């Protein structure tokens, strides 16, 4: 381990990251309230890059996708209209999923046969979600976003995980589609055979997940993983890997709707993507230094704050 990390406690590093993130978010909010006319145009993409860099760092150890942090935080504390934030949010989630997807597929942690049927339904509904999200007034989307984020906070605080869920027998649909596989668990140094059950209900839930992903411009890993792991019984690592891969299909179909509608601005999307990907690279390297449970609690707190902010902004109470 590098000497610099050994002299700094895990908590210090986590706190420093959190404080820096909060500072950038609050600075952005403060500058916004002072007035945009006094701020040079380049301050915003730079602030966006730095914020996304820190979001990327905490996204990896906390186990949430960058997209779910991006939309409420940038939507709440930056001056961009929510339409452009959601377009950029989808691309942030898509770029992260594209970066991770190939190695997950090659390592067997994402499974094509499990992902494709679920992704087809979720991508179709994400198109509908994107169209609905762009059609309804921004304050309604803000309120719905706030409620959804607060729901995610509850889900993250309460949801359990099952490393290797017990699946007595695969259901007929998953058998017919051969939604099963083998993955090599490096931690146990063994190959694990898995199959899934409750596939029809899983497919129905993915319809809803796709809709939310398209509507709010968020990656939907927070919902994909519990459905794959707790409902359908896929091993936790396969669930996380397959979820990331599903996002490549779901987010790309919703991203097309935002792109065609003109709701993607390169000035907002590109610094966000680059910042998030660079931060995620650092976050992955700091996995052994940062204490995941502490980071997770801080991210939940951050999301709670962002969710309340989105709700109050939508209600016109805290503009």
């Amino acid at each position: 381990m590098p000497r610099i990390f050994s002299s700094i406690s895990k908590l210090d590093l986590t706190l420093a990251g959190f404080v820096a993130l909060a500072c950038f978010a609050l600075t952005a909010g403060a500058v916004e309230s002072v007035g945009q006319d006094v701020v040079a145009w380049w301050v915003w993409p730079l602030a966006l890059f730095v914020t996304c860099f820190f979001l990327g760092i905490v996204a990896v150890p906390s186990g949430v996708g960058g997209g779910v942090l991006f939309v409420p935080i940038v939507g709440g504390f930056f001056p961009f209209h929510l339409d452009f934030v959601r377009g950029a949010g989808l691309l942030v989630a898509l770029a992260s999923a594209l970066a991770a997807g190939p190695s997950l597929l090659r390592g067997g942690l994402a499974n094509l046969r499990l992902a494709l049927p679920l992704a087809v339904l979720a991508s179709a509904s994400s198109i509908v979600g994107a169209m609905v999200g762009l059609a309804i007034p921004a304050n309604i989307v803000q309120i719905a976003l706030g409620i959804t984020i607060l729901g995610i906070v509850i889900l993250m605080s309460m949801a359990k995980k099952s490393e290797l869920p017990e699946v007595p027998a695969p259901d007929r649909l998953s058998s017919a589609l051969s939604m099963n596989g083998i993955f090599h668990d490096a931690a146990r140094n063994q190959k694990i055979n898995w199959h899934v059950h409750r596939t029809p209900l899983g497919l129905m839930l993915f319809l809803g997940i796709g809709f939310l992903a398209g509507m709010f411009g968020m990656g939907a890993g927070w919902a994909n993983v519990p459905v794959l792991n707790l409902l359908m019984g896929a091993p936790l690592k396969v669930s996380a890997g397959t979820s990331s891969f599903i996002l490549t299909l779901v987010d790309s179909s919703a991203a097309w709707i935002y792109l065609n509608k003109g709701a993607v601005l390169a000035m907002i999307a590109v610094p966000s993507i680059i910042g998030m990907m660079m931060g995620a690279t650092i976050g992955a390297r700091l996995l052994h230094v940062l204490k995941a449970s502490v980071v997770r609690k801080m991210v939940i707190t951050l999301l709670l704050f962002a969710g309340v902010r989105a709700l109050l902004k939508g209600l016109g109470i805290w503009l």
Partner: protein
Amino acid sequence: MKENSHISVEQQRYATLLSWGGRSGLAILIVSFFAYVLGWLPAYVALDQLPNVWTLPVDEYLKQTDSPTGWAWLGRLGEGDFAGLFGIAWLSGATLVCLLAVMPIYAKRRDFVFVIICIVALLVQVLAASGMLHSGH
């Protein structure tokens, strides 16, 4: 035995193409963005005017800037704002190539259910990309 020998051929092909698509898209995105902000490519909406319009809902933004929608941006790739969209479209379209590439493997194995699933997935992506679906405030 190789560690990934249990990974299907179609999954490996999909992974390879997705990797190329993602990396090349990101490279295009970064190059075009720096060309945009450093002024090597002219901006359609002046950079110092952006803070006045990115606060607007997308419909209002389009009206005020007279920006193109749908695929019309392809004709304006010489401008920095739209050059960046090329990389974004490339990233969004990366999965299309992957789906096309795995279909022959499923067909050869007579796994027609997955051929159909791939076709439906492709149609969903093409429909989304077509610009035929409209919505607005």
